[in-house]
């Protein structure tokens, strides 16, 4: 059982890192980025192509993260600017539909151009014993990166001036503007950061299982579930929800069967919305 729980934690950290980018963008402007998983896959395929072309893995990863960051900036400066000009329900709807479109386009282009491309980052070495369970080095490395990234994100949001400005826009946009914070600048920066984090998840996820051109939609759904359960707009919530859902996922896969896990996760999100619409850990940033 310890092994199942540890696997749950490993998965949970990945889910947290996946959900946090989606939750921040939603908190800042009400846009549900339904292309989040596809952006992650885009990064993965850039990295895979770059290594095929002979670049070392480290350089390829940097190139991949840079690419998705630039892609995020492009989407923000074009589509998102139009979305943020609207307010209320029409903003939420247009944001959702446009990003669904972006996700579909990424899916389509990748499946058309690179149908058999996939990313697997291999971390070699013998398994390491953790609490008496043999854990693969890939899983440990992925968890360590997720933990460090989450920690750095927390420090950035909590203690830097720009992080504080980010939280101010999430809490009260008009108040933020009155303080001299430009919501547009904050949104653009965080959208780019969110895209880079999606790319990073693709890298860490591929340390335990390959990311293929068709992985995007599944990742988007997972990010959405994590963000909803954690409370949209809450960073700590995303990580706590990620851990919780990761454990729920592996335990249900172990006790019932892996075919049930997607249903269990979606049920967890549905129950959360019914019981606590603001999410289990909502109301904090």
């Amino acid at each position, binding site marked *: 059982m310890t092994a199942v729980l540890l696997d749950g934690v490993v998965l949970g950290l990945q889910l947290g890192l996946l959900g946090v980018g989606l939750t921040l963008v939603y908190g800042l402007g009400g846009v549900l980025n339904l292309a989040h998983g596809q952006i992650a896959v885009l990064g993965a395929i850039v990295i895979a192509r770059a290594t095929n072309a002979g670049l070392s893995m480290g350089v390829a990863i940097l190139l991949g993260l840079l690419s998705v960051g630039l892609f995020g900036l492009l989407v923000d400066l074009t589509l998102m600017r139009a979305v943020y000009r609207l307010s209320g329900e029409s903003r939420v709807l247009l944001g959702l539909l446009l990003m669904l479109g972006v996700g579909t386009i990424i899916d389509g282009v990748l499946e058309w151009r690179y149908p058999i491309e996939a990313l697997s980052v291999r971390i070699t070495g013998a398994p390491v014993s953790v609490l008496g369970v043999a854990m693969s080095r890939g899983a440990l490395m992925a968890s360590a990166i997720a933990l460090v990234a989450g920690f750095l994100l927390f420090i950035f949001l909590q203690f830097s001036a720009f992080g*504080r400005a980010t939280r101010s826009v999430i809490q009260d946009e008009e108040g933020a503007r*009155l*303080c001299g914070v430009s919501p547009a600048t904050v949104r653009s920066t965080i959208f780019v950061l969110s895209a880079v984090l999606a790319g990073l998840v693709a890298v860490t996820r591929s340390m335990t299982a390959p990311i293929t051109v068709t992985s995007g939609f599944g990742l988007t759904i997972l990010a959405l579930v994590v963000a909803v359960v954690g409370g949209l707009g809450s960073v700590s919530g995303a990580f706590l929800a990620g851990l919780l859902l990761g454990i729920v996922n592996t335990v249900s896969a172990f006790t019932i069967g892996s075919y049930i896990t997607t249903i269990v996760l979606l049920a967890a999100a549905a129950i959360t919305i019914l019981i606590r619409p603001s999410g289990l850990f909502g109301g904090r940033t």
Partner: protein
Amino acid sequence: MADELLRVSDVSAGYLGQDVLHGAALTVGQGEVVAVIGSNGAGKTTLFRAVCGLVRPSGGTVHFDGIDITGLATHRASRSGLAYVPAERHLFPTMSVRENLVLGAYPERHQTEQLEFVYELFPRLGERKTQHAGKMSGGEQQMLAVARALMSRPRLLVLDEPTTGLAPKLAIEAYAALGELRRQGLTILVAEQQVPLVLGLADRGYVLDHGRIQLTGTANQLADDPEVRRAYLGVT
């Protein structure tokens, strides 16, 4: 007036294409305290939102320190020294008092002496530095909203009904603090329904009704005006 800090010329503004403010004009001189008096729905809030860029005027111009700021984004107006405190305050509820204040100075690094200055002006904020803004009483939230606006060392403080939701005693305290700021030379534009309080503070005032400036004069002239006495001071 030689040192004119704010000039609002013929400004009309409203929501969804429907103007609620029709060609309002006013000026605020350097170091002056100017009151805008009017009942609910007179257009005071719309006038102020047009000044600080939260509403784009459908006509007219706003000049701040000689520069045309009509329709300028709110965060730019704020950075240029125009601090607006809305009646709803718009604090950051789950941030501490101190974090709210530090954000007031954004994007500049906050100055320790400015923090000390506002803690001195409102000692209760100093005692509650680590408390969440959302957990404070109405009076304390109002103090925090004013203090946050002061953190950027503004050249003009614009206050929309600072006594909203305050008990009479706290309203008097709030105006005592504004009087202290006035003594220190801060220029203030304040909208208020509590007319006796605001005329006790202001140099001059404007009476706004149905989106139009109906009357203007010194605070004493307004306090003696039969219309003002009847409509706002409860004297028949």
